[in-house]
């Protein structure tokens, strides 16, 4: 697959899911189980992506400058800092550790 094919396929799939919500009868919403699973699916995927993005290096698990950066980010989000501030702070922590080690 080329990069463009991957991008177009994923973009169309996500857009199609949005449109699906306007085509199906809303009765499905009243069933708590599908709604709950969809909600938790988002949580599980984001948490898994954090783990892989923080610890993964190809197929290896490594502890490096990303770990303290993510801990700082979590602390700043807990203090309700704005998204962009936290992302820049996390990048700064990782960059500083790499520059001085």
């Amino acid at each position, binding site marked *: 697959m080329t990069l463009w094919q991957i991008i177009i396929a994923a973009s169309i799939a996500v857009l199609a899911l949005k449109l699906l919500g*306007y085509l199906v009868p809303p009765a499905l919403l009243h069933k708590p189980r*599908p709604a709950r699973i969809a909600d938790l699916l988002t949580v599980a*995927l984001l948490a898994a992506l954090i783990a892989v993005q923080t610890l993964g290096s190809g197929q290896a698990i490594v502890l490096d400058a990303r770990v303290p950066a993510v801990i700082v980010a979590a602390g700043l989000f807990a203090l309700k800092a704005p998204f962009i501030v936290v992302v820049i702070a996390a990048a700064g922590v990782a960059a500083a550790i790499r520059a001085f080690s």
Partner: protein
Amino acid sequence: MSPDTAPEPFEPLAVTDARNHRLAVRAGLAVGLATATYGVSFGALSVAAGLTIWQTSFISLVMFSGGSQFALIGVLAAGGLASGPAAIASATLLGVRNSLYGMRTAPVVAGGRWNDTWYKKLAAGWLTIDESTAVALAQPTATSRRTGFWVTGLAVFIGWNLTTLAGALIGDALGDTRAYGLDAAAAAAFVGLLWPRLKRLQAVAVAVAAAVVAALLTPVLMPGVPVLVAALVAVVVGFFNWFGPRQAGTGPISGERMPS
């Protein structure tokens, strides 16, 4: 949005309508502005992951859903082209919640009528994301909910696409992104997307278990696949409602971002 949106008992109806409209517009624009700031990080990270500026802008225009977009470039950054199918699957699964949002916003957008034109449905579907849904459903009347949906959706769409392009240009100019800690910034961006969803024990339990599963499977599976396997945690916990509240109902959408 705030408790003071309830109409005053002695105000004439037209005055409250105008005020509700104004509050919905203001909420939408505020959320649009706040969301636009993360467009910069998406643009920069996407270029760092190896995408071109065109490809980056295409994703923000067509996919237009933050979580899915970060997931796509995150998996591609780790696994390259070989992880393409896993990247598509991650982005798609993160987009499933938009279908549920659409079911809730369809009657809001239609203003009570079910037979809307196809292009109105297409536009509404395209703009259906966490933010437009949250602002729309927080408004007190049918008219202000509709206003809230369209204003928020359009404000976020315009802001997000402009700042994505800006971020992509910045990322392109930076060069060696690891030296600037952009890999850590990507992880921090996911933390920011997850944080508002961790209000219930069930969500926290799923998050911890999914993170552990993904980390443990990373050495044994192809990049991207551990994330998909970790998603099964949500299916199992959600199906049996482990760690869940006694009565699971159709409460407010969890994880919605309210303007502060």
